[in-house]
């Protein structure tokens, strides 16, 4: 198995910083912004994005940052081994009328995001939903695209993308394995 680093630690940091600025720019500030990470690594990236935003804007982290677990909304529950659901944390202000930015590590088939959109509906009615991902590797199976992308990475279906983040993996890099 060959593996190759496609994003180094500092590449990831730059991408997170850029995405954070793009989110602020497109939202024209931080008002009504809610950033929801999809566990496990999406939640870590969401935290990094919110921490970055907090350097430039005066925000209450707890009112902006949350996590959204999508396990129970997946469409492959019957064909894959049972997964244990993770925690969902919705900021106390709720989602009604907010601009929700979903954050995930890799955008691939789009099915995770489809599940996330379904899950969101159970918590409220955001005024808009955006999507931020660290890696877009193509091969979409649903009409879904990301608004904020760290890096577009053309891949073949057989390749595997591994996002390693310090908080969960000790390393901080993105590796492609063939």
């Amino acid at each position, binding site marked *: 198995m060959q593996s190759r680093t496609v994003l180094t630690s500092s590449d990831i940091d730059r991408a997170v910083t850029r995405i954070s600025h793009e989110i602020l720019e497109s939202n024209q500030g931080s008002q009504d912004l809610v950033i929801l990470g999809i566990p496990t690594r999406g939640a870590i990236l969401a935290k990094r994005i919110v921490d970055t935003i907090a350097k430039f804007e005066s925000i209450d982290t707890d009112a902006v940052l949350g996590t959204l677990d999508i396990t129970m909304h997946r469409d492959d529950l019957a064909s894959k081994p049972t997964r244990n*659901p993770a*925690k969902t944390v919705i900021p106390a202000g709720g989602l009604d009328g907010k601009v929700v930015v979903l954050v995930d590590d890799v955008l691939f088939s789009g099915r995770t995001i489809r599940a996330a959109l379904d899950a969101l509906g159970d*918590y409220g009615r955001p005024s808009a939903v955006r999507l931020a991902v660290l890696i877009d590797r193509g091969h979409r199976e649903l009409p879904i695209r990301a608004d904020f992308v760290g890096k577009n990475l053309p891949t073949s279906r057989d390749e595997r993308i591994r996002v390693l983040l310090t908080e969960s993996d000790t390393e901080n890099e993105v590796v492609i394995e063939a």
Partner: protein
Amino acid sequence: MKHLVSVADLTREAAIAILDTSLEMSEVNDRDIKKLPTLRGKTVVNLFFEDSTRTRISFEVAAKRLSADVINFAAKGSSVSKGESLKDTAQTLEAIGADAVVIRHHASGAAHMLANSGWVKGSVINAGDGTHEHPTQALLDAFTLRSAIHTDARGKGLDGVSVAIVGDIAHSRVARSNLVLLKQLGAKVYLVGPPTLLPNALVKRADGFSYSLDEAISTFKLDAVMMLRVQLERMTAGFFPSEREYARIWGLNADRLALLGSETFVMHPGPMNRGLEIDAAAADSKNSLVLKQVANGVSVRMAVLYHLLSGGENE
């Protein structure tokens, strides 16, 4: 995991996974839209040969909140009263395509029979079989206790927690399941009750026993007492002289509650015989987890249904 017949089938990891999932399910039960699409298209049959309020209703609500279709089957008013056997009833359910059968039966081993006979292809969940086991009750008791003791309970067991199970141990499937599960999770379990109702086989597996509740309270440093219902329908012999004497020696009253102190939780699987095994002062005290047990019943049963009915070929 295909069936849940006995808590002995659960490893510590599997039990903790179910408890952690229950934590997420209880979050679902707190929000406005209490529904998940997870088990859409699955059929869950509640097959109840014995009376039940809490267990049947909470299984029904649990299955519905996960979007499964629910069929309630009570032996009364069905062909069982015409003499239909368990096998024929089971095969009828198989013919209509049940993905899970939740069974409560007065005969110990009925759930095991159903799970291992090949009569049904779906999952079998034991909701109480005779005096044998009641696994989902033990899971919800463990879940309730774990949440009461740990502020962040995720991933944790019940290591070092000491629990006394008090009352009619001999006839109690709740006691049997709890003894096994609580010990699996690392708790110390003490059995307390009249000598006639404390079978030696179970006492041997416990960390200690006592014939007197007062003695148990002063000897063991208890984090929780689990009072069992005196099952009058199973009192076929003179196990204890009278109900008044039982209440006096083994009942949890205000005096004993004071002896236990403010750190000890009071649990009861319900339905309570107030004034017999537990009096109002204990049942309604601030240390009582009785109502939480009922509320958690739905979350835990959602978690069990999810773990049994999701998952594909690798299971």
